[in-house]
């Protein structure tokens, strides 16, 4: 009897050990998987909610002010930075730790159809807009219709693969996708800080045109109070649906331009509590200060310092483009740009895991210093193969964006191309506002700062930068290099709709390889945005992600002073 009991305990113990081991192995993977159906109710709290103090004024140095107020049509931080606290999103990125799954906001939970093409969102009840109207499914539909199907004369910069938004009942809304997406990508796209929910009533009233409406109704944690030419003031929403938030009573955004000495002086002088997009020196000082903190968020853009016009002779020959790329010491380029912004780092065409990391790139040809001679020899050989063994007679027009790093970088490229390959360029420095005309018109041979704004959906970003617009059949709006590759377009279609992570990884790597072979542009880089704040501002994440635009609601932050 005693032996049987002992054996039973042994078996039970073994089961417990196996279950625990499985939990340890499977647990983190399960936690990292896309949030499928979080249970209701969910209310966001500050990281250390139990210690949190309430009240106070949060003084933020914000890049701005906005020139207009239509969040859906805006591509600048000036809008989302100041307006985001007035609104809620349908779902949101967890601002306390960007690596956590997508969390509920106005949608309390959701279900995904087995084919991944239909999302049904169950909405929070009892939520009111700041103008007193009730929030419901019609508002979600009206908002996403404005974003996805903007009226003919209005602009929308957000790309969401939504075919239709259907109201099932007052608190249930269904989104039907126009093409498959894995659930994390789709939910993360919805969680973009720009996709703020406003009321159907307001959208009807203004016919979707919110450019001049500084206070279109939201349900967010803060309400509009006033704005001047120097500041934008918000106050706590006393009727906010989250009983725990917000913690502070008032937010004052003071307009201080990004990367300026004025911003640095205001932050380091204690005139503001938090500053965004600091210059390198100010960021280092904030990091070094014992009573301040600093953090860098990566920008989800696909950027290069040099774009080639793939339509123009002889740059339409990928041997010439590759030769020009190989002639440049990419590590030297990296060092030049890091003088101006230490967050900038050389990168592959696509971010890891599809492309290689900086560390991986630096170990291998053509980036490793030991392979530099071979890279130059290969560049010369490629030029000879293309029919230009002793250089090109034409002088190329290199359009350079007016900024110290772009000028210095272009001068380096100009010198190296002429010295090593006999390729002459004329640098034409233009203001940032004139760059768009040149990029859109394609009136350049080479162009500096060929950056493409990214979002949560990498496939949409790649399509925007290197492929065709499926709606129009023409090249995408940000495909300034006029890159065309049928195989690439086909793979991209598969990549964007692939639901299996392993197959998606393989497809992404193939896309990256094609870009490396074709070399539509050179000197790819990734950059970050530096933030600094005083340690009495509590609740901010310890590590940055790649979507700082999604975290400006301030309902998770409190002041310890």
């Amino acid at each position: 009897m005693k032996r049987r009991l002992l054996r039973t305990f042994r078996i039970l113990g073994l089961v417990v050990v196996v279950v625990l081991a499985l939990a340890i192995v499977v647990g983190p993977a399960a936690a990292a998987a896309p949030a499928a159906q979080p249970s209701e109710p969910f209310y966001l709290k500050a990281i250390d909610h139990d210690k949190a103090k309430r009240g106070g004024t949060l003084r933020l140095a914000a890049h701005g002010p906005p020139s207009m107020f239509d969040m859906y049509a805006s591509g600048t931080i000036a809008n989302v930075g100041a307006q985001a606290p007035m609104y809620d999103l349908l779902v949101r990125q967890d601002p306390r730790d960007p690596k956590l799954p997508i969390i509920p906001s106005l949608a309390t939970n959701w279900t995904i159809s087995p084919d991944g093409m239909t999302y049904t969102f169950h909405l929070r009840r009892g939520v009111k807009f700041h103008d007193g109207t009730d929030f419901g499914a019609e508002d979600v539909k009206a908002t996403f219709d404005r974003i996805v199907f903007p009226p003919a004369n209005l602009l929308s910069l957000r790309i969401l693969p939504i075919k239709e938004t259907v109201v099932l009942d007052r608190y249930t809304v269904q989104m039907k996708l126009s093409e498959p997406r894995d659930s994390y990508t789709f939910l993360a796209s919805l969680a973009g800080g720009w996709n703020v929910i406003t009321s159907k009533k307001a959208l009807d009233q203004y016919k979707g045109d919110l450019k001049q409406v500084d206070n279109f109704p939201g349900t967010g944690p803060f309400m509009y109070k006033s704005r001047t030419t120097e500041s934008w003031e918000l106050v706590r929403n006393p009727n906010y649906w989250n009983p725990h938030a917000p913690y502070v009573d008032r937010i004052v955004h003071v307009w201080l331009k990004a990367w300026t000495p004025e911003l640095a002086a205001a932050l380091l002088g204690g005139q503001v509590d938090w500053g965004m997009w600091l210059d390198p020196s100010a960021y280092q000082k904030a990091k070094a200060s014992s009573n301040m903190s600093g953090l860098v968020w990566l920008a989800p853009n696909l950027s290069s310092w040099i774009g080639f016009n793939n339509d123009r002779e002889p740059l339409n020959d990928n041997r010439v483009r590759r030769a020009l790329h190989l002639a440049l010491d990419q590590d030297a380029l990296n060092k030049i740009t890091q003088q101006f912004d230490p967050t900038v780092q050389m990168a592959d065409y696509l971010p890891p895991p599809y492309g290689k990391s900086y560390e991986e790139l630096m170990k291998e040809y053509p980036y490793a210093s030991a392979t530099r001679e071979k890279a130059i020899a290969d560049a010369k050989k490629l030029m000879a193969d293309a029919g230009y063994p002793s250089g090109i007679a034409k002088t190329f027009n290199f359009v350079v964006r007016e900024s110290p790093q772009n000028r210095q970088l272009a001068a380096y490229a100009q010198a190296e191309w002429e010295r090593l390959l006999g390729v002459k360029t004329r640098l034409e420095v233009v203001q940032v506002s004139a760059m768009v005309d040149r990029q859109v018109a394609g009136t350049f041979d080479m162009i500096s700062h060929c950056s493409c704004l990214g979002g949560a959906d990498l496939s949409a970003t790649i399509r925007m930068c290197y492929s065709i617009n499926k709606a129009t059949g023409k090249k995408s709006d940000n495909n300034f290099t006029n890159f065309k590759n049928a195989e690439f377009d086909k793979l991209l279609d598969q990549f964007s709709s692939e639901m299996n992570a392993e197959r998606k990884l393989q497809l992404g790597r193939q896309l990256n390889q094609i870009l490396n072979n074709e070399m539509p542009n050179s000197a790819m880089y990734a950059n970050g945005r530096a933030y600094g704040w005083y340690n009495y501002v509590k609740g901010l994440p310890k590590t940055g992600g790649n979507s700082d635009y999604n975290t400006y609601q301030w309902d998770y932050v409190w002041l310890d002073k």
Partner: protein
Amino acid sequence: LLLIPTVLGVTIIIFTAMRLLPGDPLVAIFGLEGARRMTPEQRANLEQALGLRDPVVVQYGKWLRDIATGEFGKSLLRGDSVTQFVLRRGPITLEIAVLATLLSWLVGFPVGIISALRPNSRTDYASRIFSILFVAIPGFWLGLVVVLALILWFDYKAPILPVYPWENLQKNIEMVAGPALVMGLGFAGFVARMVRSSLVEVLHEDYVRTARAKGLHEQVVIVRHTLRNAILPVITWSSLFLGVALGGSVAIEKAFGVPGLGLTMIDAILDRDLPVVQNLVMLYTIVFVVVNLITDMSYAWLDPRIRYD
């Protein structure tokens, strides 16, 4: 009446200059990415709404109409109207200009008078050296040096929001004192030199000798007989100072980080915010022309011999 063609001439120069500058207003409004992603139709609609597709003559005519009705346009980048800028930031710039002009009188007149009364003395040499020094040193450079000294010794923090005298007089004075001092001392050098040369000239006039011969007290001779006649050119210069102070404040406000109209102008130029630059330059022109008109009219009051038909 010459004022009207002067202002009209300036409007043509400003309008032409602004049209020659490169830049895309839609980038200012929607950001670089926003402007890139517009379809040609959307771009056309937005440009139409902003009036950028109108013929140049129509654009110019609309601008003149706006000026006449007091509608000074709207910032492309900041959303605010230029009138809002002027109402909010104008008082700070005006305060600096007026204080600088007053300071130039308070320092320049005594220095000039003492210098003229004791020509070629040590006092005269010292005052002339300081006058030339303050005239020669560029205001923005002196401003930077003063700011640096204030930061190092007094933990100075550049203001980030405007503070008006009726809100908090002490903070307002802290904000405008530096720019007013730097600009005022520069003007004081001019005033001192002007007062000295005018006084030296007038002191040799026959009527001054007569006044002294009559046995009048030297103070009466200087103040009532000499200074009143010597003051005319100084008044002309001082009126110009007010205009120069408005223009000069552009660099000095930047040095001190004071949120006045000068700083607005610098930001607008750097951002290619053309409506703001265009309308602020226009406003400065109008102020300058009106101040000159008032100065001309004040001559008749100061010197009854001067009459305008």
